[in-house]
């Protein structure tokens, strides 16, 4: 990199804590954050036109549907909204969604951490292929994610007759719903951990081991604290997808109201039976979950950015 842009150097000298570090190093980190409005500035007319088009597009395609969810949820008044949410079938759907999300988040967290350890801390052949295979579920249609488990565990599936003989129900029951959800959320935790753990290297772990700590102790006392925010980030996204998954779960659930319907499936059941306000009432909970997820995600991103800078 050649000469530093003057604005960045000026800003550096204005910050007292910058004295402890080299100006170049800090400027390199801060450069992408600085606004670039000064270089090659567009005419104000162009600027406001671009902003207006961007805001209009996002407003029309994203904000309006979101507003619509809450508007329709209260279309029949607050009493109807409360009644829809306290309906036994709704409560059952909420319970099932929470159970499925808890299972898939727990499973994907454990295996995500194990996978990230293998991928980030060691060099081996075929690593890129392994990463591609782990991210494969993101590219597969959710419907196919459900279909494959029906082919394996359904009554006409490969293991179906054996399972039926042993009175084990996978498809149209909780295990199938959990499996399909684990499939679609498979990459979330690993993909957040691997880049950070690779960047952190193995020096700290090696120091702990040479001081006599066991492998597990090293992991829990050194590695885990170093990646806790990235782990939380992965868990957050994994949870949001697990609670909101529709296509994969729809194929394996069997759609029994009050028994095998998760919240998104219950929304569909209500909508298909023309109980629109109730469908939107349940949807409003899922929309709220999405909004909370985004707020927490923004907070975690700030935290992660701060940590990688310090």
């Amino acid at each position, binding site marked *: 990199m050649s000469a530093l842009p003057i604005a960045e150097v000026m800003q550096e000298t204005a910050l007292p804590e910058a004295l402890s570090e080299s100006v170049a190093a800090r400027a390199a980190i801060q450069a992408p954050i600085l606004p670039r409005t000064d270089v090659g500035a567009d005419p104000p007319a162009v600027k406001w036109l*671009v902003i207006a088009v961007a805001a209009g597009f996002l407003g029309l395609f994203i904000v309006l549907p979101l507003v619509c969810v809450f508007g329709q949820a209260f279309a029949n008044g607050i009493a109807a909204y409360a009644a829809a949410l306290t309906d036994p079938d709704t409560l059952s759907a909420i319970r099932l969604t929470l159970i499925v999300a808890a299972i898939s988040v727990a499973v994907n967290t454990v295996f995500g951490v194990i996978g990230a350890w293998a991928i980030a801390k060691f060099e081996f052949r075929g690593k890129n292929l392994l990463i*591609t295979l*782990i991210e494969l579920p993101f590219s597969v249609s959710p*419907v196919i994610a459900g279909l*494959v488990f029906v*082919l*394996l565990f359904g009554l006409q599936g490969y293991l179906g007759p054996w399972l039926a003989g042993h009175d084990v129900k996978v498809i149209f029951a909780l295990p199938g719903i959990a499996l399909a959800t684990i499939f679609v959320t498979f990459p979330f935790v690993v993909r957040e951990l691997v880049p950070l753990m690779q960047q952190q290297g193995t020096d700290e772990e090696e120091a702990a081991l040479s001081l006599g700590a066991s492998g597990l102790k090293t992991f829990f006392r050194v590695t885990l604290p170093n990646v806790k925010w990235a782990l939380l980030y992965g868990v957050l996204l994994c949870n949001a997808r697990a609670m909101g998954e529709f*296509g994969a779960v729809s194929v394996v659930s069997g759609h029994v109201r009050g028994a095998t319907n998760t919240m998104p499936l219950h929304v*569909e059941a209500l909508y298909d039976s023309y109980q629109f306000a109730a469908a939107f009432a349940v949807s409003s909970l899922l929309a709220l*979950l999405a909004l909370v997820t985004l707020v927490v995600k923004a907070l975690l991103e700030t935290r992660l950015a701060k940590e990688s800078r310090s």
Partner: protein
Amino acid sequence: MLPGFGLTLGTTLLWLSLIVLIPLGALFVKSAALSADQFIAIVTSRRALHAFALSFGLSLAAACVNLVFGAIVVWALVRYRFPGRRLLDAIVDVPFALPTAVAGIALTALYAPSGWIGGLLAPLGIHVAFTPLGIFVALVFIGLPFVVRTVQPALEDLDAELEEAAASLGAGRCMTVRRVVLPTVVPALLTGFTLAFARAVGEYGSVVFIAGNLPNVSEIAPLLIVIRLQEFRYADASAIAVVMLMASLLFLFLINGLQRWTALHTESGR
């Protein structure tokens, strides 16, 4: 050398095989039970061909719209400072976080003839909900963040000196953008476009409510898989799914290649 390599790699491979690879393998085994003629007859039947054409065609159209408007949104977010910029930035992620079924019924309510937008369009003779146009709207909704979140870092990384140099050499603003900015972000634009396209092809939840789901008119390929499953025609469902999966794998390799190209591009640009 840290401990646990064999154990963690073994566990990862075993778990990956059990959850992802063996189930996907079952799909190929199931469709391999069909003869080549049967397979071709299923995937080239009028209904299947129409579903593929609809899924791929509308996904392509939606990805194009997302490419253009995504680029505009990125430009506004990266290059300008204005009140509400951070809010606009946060809104982009909503389609990632909002469950697809919720998006589906909300879009349907908006674009139905009695809805806020559908009501405005109906007198003009434009019907969105329950037509292929509705599918297109849903695919635009779910694809947008892919373009924005891929192109945004590339534009942020763009060296301002390049633009200053172009301007000081007498290039006009339009020329600078076209000849300096655009070529550097092309790999990211293509990656975002492919990601949005790939996601749209497999999309189910947000589409089925607004589509109308008429065979040979507004029936997407993932829905045809579900219908064949409900009819217990597992082999038919698997054959269609194999075609979709092969397309997904193709997209995956394309995206991997594009991302390597993007990385190369941003490094050599520095």
